[in-house]
Every structure is written in structure tokens, then in C-alpha cells.
């Protein structure tokens, strides 16, 4: 992103980022209110969030957003001042409005489907809460975009130094809303006015300065100012805070009365002001103040000050907001952290550089070790320190892109609301571990799989309220979403307290769809895993949400693509739970380094169940090129890695062969036969440029300490290929 952009565009981009934060705070606070755990500050957070979004949106001319936010804000104002109660029904509407606000923001930012139609429905509901019938009406006060006329002087004598030139660059101005009519600029012949101006104490107490007011009058034309000092007492009894001076100004100007009076807009009511046309000879002695009707006047009338102390404290105000800071509830903004916003591109670059640093350090270490230097000498200890620092840098950088999963969980809570509404079930979402940090990319790629699982839970997992009651459960279904760090990985769990997996039905469906043979004998856990088979979907009717042909296989593929694992457990009658285990970041991989046919390769550790050593007696041939091996009573297909990759002819002697028991995509297992296991370590993932050639069975590459490239395998790919093409000796097209 170039920094030489139009600054307004940058601020606009930053505004949308701010909106996301505000929407998150809004969600949080509404949730707290829904849980009944709110305090007096919670509703203020809600109000301010909507208020700020409205304010910024107005600056960028996002009218639909402003309109909706304005109404929402008005209602939230009623709640925060205690005039409206936020009961369960109201909160439902507030949640919907928050979701809609989010849609409007997104639409303003990204375009796409216009959510504006929803606005009217929700505005009607908001009106209903306010006790008003019907939808948005013409009479609804539009948020005023009013510009205070501020003595538009055409003659800006003291400011002619060009400092305003930038301001008059129309491109730099934000898009303005409906411009109200400014008071007509006087293009008339100059007229003479007489002004009598006597400031009162309050004028000074609000920081106004008569000198500046007089100067502004000077800018309107030619002014002759006389100061009346008659009320000045002798110096000894002079109190600085008391006003004693007044002025008479004869002003010859082309400006209209309204314009002249607008100079005094801020001090209206804090002074005595009389304006007459003509010069001072014509001025009657006590004309009432003449302010044009459209000038807004404060409710306080211009009277001599009463009992005002020099150090002003505000007069009693209605519903004064709490000025002294209270101890904040932990839910509200935690101790304000110092943050810096960084371009994602820069972070990418940094992550890449650190990856290369790690590789480089490994290569250096290797070279130094090979050089047989004294083990306790400077070089080796320096190297150890270097390794430690590199590991620390790597750890820190890898977590730079880490974000709390909270935003993801909040999205899920919206999904639950929509899903439960669509199928008419009452569902409550519990979350734990929202602060758990995960790489931003991982979070983004988790959204779809999680959405699907949540919808499944609501649609299929949870029973209808009547059934739940019959089963002795509370009618409200519970879905639990948790995240935690555990042994260097992130564990995310989605569980429901529904009916659990209907195993007989699942088994039958799988048989009917030809996914498994009719006489299959499967354990409970194996039946559960049938859900992950492609083409499996238990929805007999396509409901609103699930059963669109997107099965759990897509979910699992997505999880595995992130280097993760997903496991399912279920107890009939009690519920189902999915457990996802993910690496902390996508840039590195926990891998098992192996060699086969002279080539060093890496197998992702999350797919390795265990290592095996064959005894020839345990291996049986199904047909030429296809073997299976007995692993604790079950037969597992053998995949000869060296042959599969085309490095050499298939092995025939299995005695003592080393293999990795791999979990395949569909949950089944395979034994991947290799030559040796070399090591187990974290490797930096380097993508392979797809442009020229996509190697089957290879996911990526890494660079080892010796500088050599080791390919990172995609075991599932290899196993699938092996099953489809039983090995023939030496494939054609093996590279030299």
C-alpha cells in the first residue's frame, strides 16, 4: 500500500477498521446485557459504538448507514437514560440491529448485496419499541447535517498568506451531505449597521474573547469601534473577572444581518447585543435584541449573571454523565494497550525473512559442526547463542499475526442466532477462551468450517424443544465453543448437548450410498467418522442451512489444509463434540524428517499416528502391487513411498521395513513405507511455485540445515493415488 495515497482514502480505510472494533464492542456489550451481567457502563459502550459509527459514516456520506445508525442510536439513548428498559424482546431487536449495522458497514466498505431492505424492517421494530407505529416515516427527523455559518468573510485579510489554499482544494474535502443553504453572501451595496456589545462574565468564563469577536467584525467590512469605559472602577477595586467594558461598533459591510450576528453565535446569551441598521445616531436606546428567527438560541435567557463564582462549575445538568472515572468492569476496555497498526504486507515480508533467517542459521550451524571446531570454544558457544536468539525471534514473529479468536467467536454467535431462528429452536452459545491467540490467516480460514459445524449442530445435533423436554433436557439447546493453547497447538472444540450421532442411521446411509460395503462391521468411533466421507449428508430434506451438499469432508479437508486434525466424539442422547487441533501458525510445520530412496522428505507430524517396523509375516499381498499389513488385528494398506514417488521400483522384501502409520483424509489408515526416520522437528514451509508443474503427493518444500531442499509430503494425496493405481514397476517419465 503506498503512503502517497489520498489521505481521505487512508482515513476512510482506517474508519472501517475502527468500525470493526466498535461493532465488536457493541456485540460484546449486548451479550453482557443478555447475560444479565451488565453495569452502568455497558449501555454506554453500546451507545458510543453506534454513535461513533454514525459520526464517521456522516463524514464519508454513507447515508443509508447514517440513517439506520441514527435511529438505533436514538433508541439506545432511551435505554441509557433509563427511559426504556432493555428486556429480552428488546435485546433480540438490538442484536438484530447490531448485525444489520455490521452488514451496512460491510456493504459500505465492500459493495455487494445491498442490505438496505432489511433496514426498513428493523426500523419498524425499533419504532415499535419506542411505542411508535409503523415504519420509517417522512416525519422522522433526519440527522441534521448542519453547518454553522461562521461569518463567511470574503475578505480574509490576515489570512491571505495562502495557508488556506489547501483547504479550498475541493478534492480534499470529504463528500458533504446535503448542503444546507448558507446565508446569502451579500453582494449588495454596503450598508451601515450599529452594534452595541456588552459582554457578561459568563462570556469570559467560557473562554470567549471579545477581541476576537471584534476582529471578526473587522473582517466583514469597515468598522469603527468605540469602547465605553465608563463603568470601569478605580484600579484598586477592579476585579478582573467582572466585565466593565462595552463597545459600540459602526460597521459598513455588504454582509447581511444574519452574517453579522453569526459572529456572536457562541456568545449569544452571554452578552448584551443590539444590532440596528443605520449609524449610531439612529440607534434607539433600548431596542430588544434582534436575532433572526433561525438562529438557535440557548434555553438560558440573557440575564445578568447570578451567583457565578470565578471558577465556574457547571450548573446542575439533567442526567449528568458520571465524570469521575469508576473502576471499569473487566469486560469494558481493558487497560488501554499501546498498539501500532501495521500493513499486512510488511508482516508477510517479515515472516518470510525470519523464515530465511532460520534456514540460514541452520545451515550455518551445520557448517560449523562439520568444521569440527572445539566444542567449548567461542565459535560454538556463539553459535548456541545465535540459535537461541533465532528461535526467540521466530517465536515472536510467528505470533505477530496472532489475534484473539474472539472476532471469530462473535461471528459464530451471529450464525447461531440466524440458524436457530431459521429452524425455530432456542439455542444458547457458550464460549470460552476467546482471548486465545491464533494466526490471523488461520482464523480467516477457520470461519467457513466453523460456520458449517455450528449450523450442523443447530440443524442436526440439537433436538426440537418438544423432543428435548421429552428427554428431560431444558428446551434451550446449548452449543459450546472453546479455544485453548495446548502443547504448542491450538485446540478448538465445538460441542452440543443434543441427541448425539444416530449411529444405526449413519451406518445405513453410508451403506445405501455405497460408501462402505453392506456387511461392514464398524466400531462406534469408525461409524462417527463416516460423517467425514465425501458425499455423506444425513439431511433427508434440504433444510435452510445444511444439506446443501457441503459435507463434513469439506470441513476436514479445510482443517487438514491448515495442518490440523479434527476428531469427533459422540454420546447418544447427550451430544456430539468436534475437537480441532491446529498449529499456531501456518508458516512452520511440525514434521518428521525421513529418507526414502536416497531422498530426504518431510511428513507432517499431525498426520502420523505411530511408527511401525514390519515383520515379513505380518504383510500379505492382495494382488501384485497391493499389500496390507496387520496392525493390532486390523489390516492396513501398505504404500511404498519410494515407488509411489517414482524414485525406484517397488520393494519386495518387507522384513524390518520401517513405516509410518498415517491417518488418511477419510479417517482410514495406511502404512507409508519409508527407508529411515531421521529426525522430528519444526520446519519452515516454503511454497512450491505452481506455475509450471504441480507435483502430485507434494504439499510444499523446506530447506534443511545442509541447504538441501526436502519436499514436504501430502500423505493423503499419495495414499489416494496408490489406491487408484496399484503399483506398476517404475513409472514412465521419472526425471533423470
Amino acid at each position: 500500500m503506498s503512503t502517497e495515497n489520498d489521505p481521505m482514502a487512508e482515513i476512510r480505510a482506517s474508519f472501517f477498521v475502527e468500525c470493526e472494533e466498535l461493532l465488536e464492542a457493541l456485540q460484546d456489550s449486548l451479550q453482557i446485557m443478555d447475560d444479565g451481567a451488565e453495569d452502568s457502563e455497558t449501555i454506554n459502550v453500546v451507545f458510543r459504538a453506534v454513535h461513533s459509527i454514525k459520526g464517521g459514516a456522516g463524514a464519508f456520506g454513507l447515508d443509508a448507514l447514517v440513517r439506520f445508525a441514527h435511529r438505533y442510536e436514538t433508541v439506545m439513548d432511551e435505554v441509557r437514560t433509563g427511559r426504556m428498559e432493555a428486556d429480552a424482546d428488546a435485546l433480540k431487536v438490538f442484536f438484530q440491529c447490531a448485525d444489520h449495522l455490521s452488514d451496512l458497514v460491510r456493504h459500505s466498505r465492500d459493495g455487494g448485496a445491498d442490505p438496505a431492505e432489511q433496514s426498513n424492517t428493523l426500523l419498524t421494530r425499533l419504532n415499535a419499541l419506542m411505542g411508535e407505529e409503523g415504519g420509517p416515516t417522512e416525519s422522522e427527523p433526519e440527522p441534521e447535517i448542519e453547518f454553522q455559518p461562521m461569518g463567511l468573510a470574503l475578505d480574509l485579510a490576515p489570512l491571505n498568506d495562502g495557508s488556506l489554499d489547501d483547504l479550498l482544494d475541493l478534492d480534499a474535502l470529504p463528500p458533504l451531505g446535503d448542503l444546507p443553504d448558507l446565508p446569502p453572501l451579500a453582494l449588495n451595496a454596503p450598508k451601515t449597521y450599529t452594534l452595541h456589545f456588552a459582554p457578561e462574565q459568563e462570556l469570559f468564563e467560557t473562554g470567549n474573547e471579545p477581541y476576537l469577536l471584534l476582529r471578526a467584525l473587522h473582517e466583514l467590512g469597515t468598522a469603527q469601534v468605540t469602547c465605553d469605559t465608563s463603568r470601569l472602577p478605580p484600579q484598586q477595586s477592579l476585579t478582573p473577572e467582572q466585565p466593565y467594558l462595552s463597545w459600540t461598533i459602526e460597521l459598513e459591510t455588504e454582509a447581511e444581518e444574519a452574517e453579522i450576528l453569526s459572529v456572536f453565535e457562541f456568545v449569544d446569551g452571554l452578552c448584551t447585543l443590539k444590532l440596528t441598521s443605520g449609524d449610531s445616531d439612529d440607534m434607539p436606546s433600548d431596542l430588544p435584541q434582534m436575532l433572526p428567527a433561525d438562529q438557535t438560541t440557548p434555553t438560558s435567557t440573557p440575564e445578568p449573571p447570578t451567583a457565578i463564582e470565578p471558577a465556574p462549575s457547571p450548573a446542575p445538568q439533567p442526567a449528568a454523565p458520571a465524570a469521575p472515572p469508576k473502576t471499569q468492569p473487566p469486560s469494558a476496555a481493558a487497560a488501554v494497550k499501546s498498539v501500532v497498526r501495521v500493513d499486512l504486507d510488511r508482516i508477510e515480508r517479515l515472516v518470510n525473512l525470519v523464515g530465511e533467517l532460520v534456514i540460514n542459521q541452520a545451515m550455518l550451524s551445520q557448517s560449523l559442526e562439520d568444521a569440527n571446531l572445539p566444542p567449548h570454544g567461542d565459535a560454538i558457544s556463539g553459535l548456541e547463542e545465535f540459535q537461541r536468539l533465532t528461535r526467540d525471534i521466530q517465536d515472536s514473529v510467528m505470533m505477530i499475526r496472532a489475534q484473539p479468536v474472539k472476532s471469530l467467536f462473535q461471528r459464530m454467535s451471529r450464525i447461531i442466532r440466524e440458524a436457530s431462528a431459521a429452524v425455530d429452536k432456542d439455542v444458547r452459545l457458550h464460549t470460552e477462551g476467546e482471548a486465545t491467540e491464533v494466526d490471523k490467516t488461520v482464523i480467516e480460514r477457520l470461519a467457513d468450517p466453523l460456520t458449517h459445524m455450528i449450523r450442523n449442530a443447530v440443524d442436526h445435533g440439537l433436538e426440537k424443544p418438544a423432543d428435548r423436554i421429552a428427554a428431560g433436557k431444558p428446551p434451550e439447546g446449548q452449543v459450546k465453543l472453546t479455544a485453548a493453547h495446548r502443547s504448542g497447538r491450538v485446540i478448538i472444540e465445538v460441542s452440543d448437548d443434543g441427541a448425539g450421532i444416530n449411529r444405526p442411521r449413519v451406518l445405513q446411509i453410508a451403506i445405501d450410498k455405497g460408501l462402505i460395503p453392506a456387511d461392514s462391521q464398524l466400531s462406534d468411533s469408525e461409524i462417527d467418522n463416516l460423517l467425514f466421507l465425501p458425499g455423506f449428508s444425513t439431511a433427508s430434506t434440504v433444510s435452510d442451512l445444511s444439506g446443501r451438499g457441503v459435507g463434513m469432508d469439506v470441513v476436514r479437508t479445510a482443517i487438514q489444509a491448515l495442518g490440523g486434525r479434527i476428531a469427533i466424539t459422540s454420546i447418544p442422547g447427550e451430544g456430539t463434540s468436534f475437537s480441532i487441533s491446529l498449529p499456531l501458525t501456518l508458516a512452520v510445520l511440525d514434521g518428521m524428517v525421513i529418507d526414502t530412496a536416497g531422498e530426504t522428505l518431510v511428513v507432517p507430524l499431525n498426520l502420523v499416528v505411530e511408527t511401525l517396523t514390519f515383520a515379513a509375516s505380518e504383510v500379505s499381498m492382495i494382488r501384485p502391487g497391493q499389500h496390507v499389513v496387520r496392525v493390532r488385528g486390523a489390516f492396513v494398506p501398505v504404500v511404498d513411498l519410494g515407488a509411489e514417488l517414482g524414485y525406484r521400483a517397488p520393494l519386495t522384501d518387507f522384513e524390518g521395513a520401517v513405516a509410518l502409520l498415517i491417518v488418511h483424509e477419510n479417517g482410514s489408515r495406511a502404512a507409508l513405507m519409508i527407508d529411515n526416520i531421521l529426525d522430528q522437528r519444526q520446519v519452515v514451509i516454503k511454497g512450491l511455485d505452481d506455475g509450471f508443474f504441480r507435483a502430485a503427493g507434494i504439499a510444499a518444500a523446506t530447506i534443511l540445515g545442509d541447504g538441501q531442499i526436502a519436499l514436504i509430503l501430502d500423505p493423503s494425496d499419495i495414499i489416494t493415488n496408490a489406491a487408484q493405481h496399484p503399483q506398476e514397476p517404475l513409472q514412465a517419465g521419472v526425471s533423470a
Partner: protein
Amino acid sequence: MSLNILAVDDSRTMRDMIRLALQPAGFNVHTADDGLHGIDVLDVIEPDAIITDINMPRMDGFGFIDAVRGQEKHRATPILVLTTEAAPELKARAREAGATGWIVKPFDPAKLVKALQMVAG
């Protein structure tokens, strides 16, 4: 001689826009993101004028103006209040709290500059 302005608003967008409006006009703009923060910054930069929002966490605009006016040296420092409505009650309240003037959001940068010049010179 550039004037020092302190702009207090919890919206980053608003702070950016104020800065964008005022810096080309020669003002030095300092910002704070709520009333409490504003008090801290006040001590450091001694502004010639202050612009503040009303609705802010921890200490809102009125509380902030109160605190500012409570300081001897800032009893007459010009304070402009940012409001999203031109409602008379809000203006009255602002004035009662000690504000010098007000500016309605969304603001026209030229008008913000003029308003500042009007109250701060």
C-alpha cells in the same frame, strides 16, 4: 507562530479528520482518545485551544471540560465541542460546562478552521 490544538475524541477516524483539516491551516494538532487521556496530554502541551467530543469512555466531554476549566491557567482556554446534533439543549449544556463554542459533525474542514480562528485567534 502556530497554535497548539488539543483534539480529544475516542474515534480514531475523527482524530484523523481533525488533523487533516487543521494541519494544512498551520495548526499543531495533538490528540487524546478520551477525557482522562486528554488531561494528561493537557499538562504536557499547554494547548492554545481544545476541541473535544462529548461521548467518550472513562471521562466524557463534559467531565473533561470541567476538569480543564478547573485548572487556573485554562480558565479561559477556548474549547470547542464536537456534537452530532445542533440541538439547543446540547449547546446549552456545553456552554454550562464551560465550552466556548461548538462544531457539528460531520464538519466542514474550512468551518472548523474558521471556528478555531474565531475563538483562538
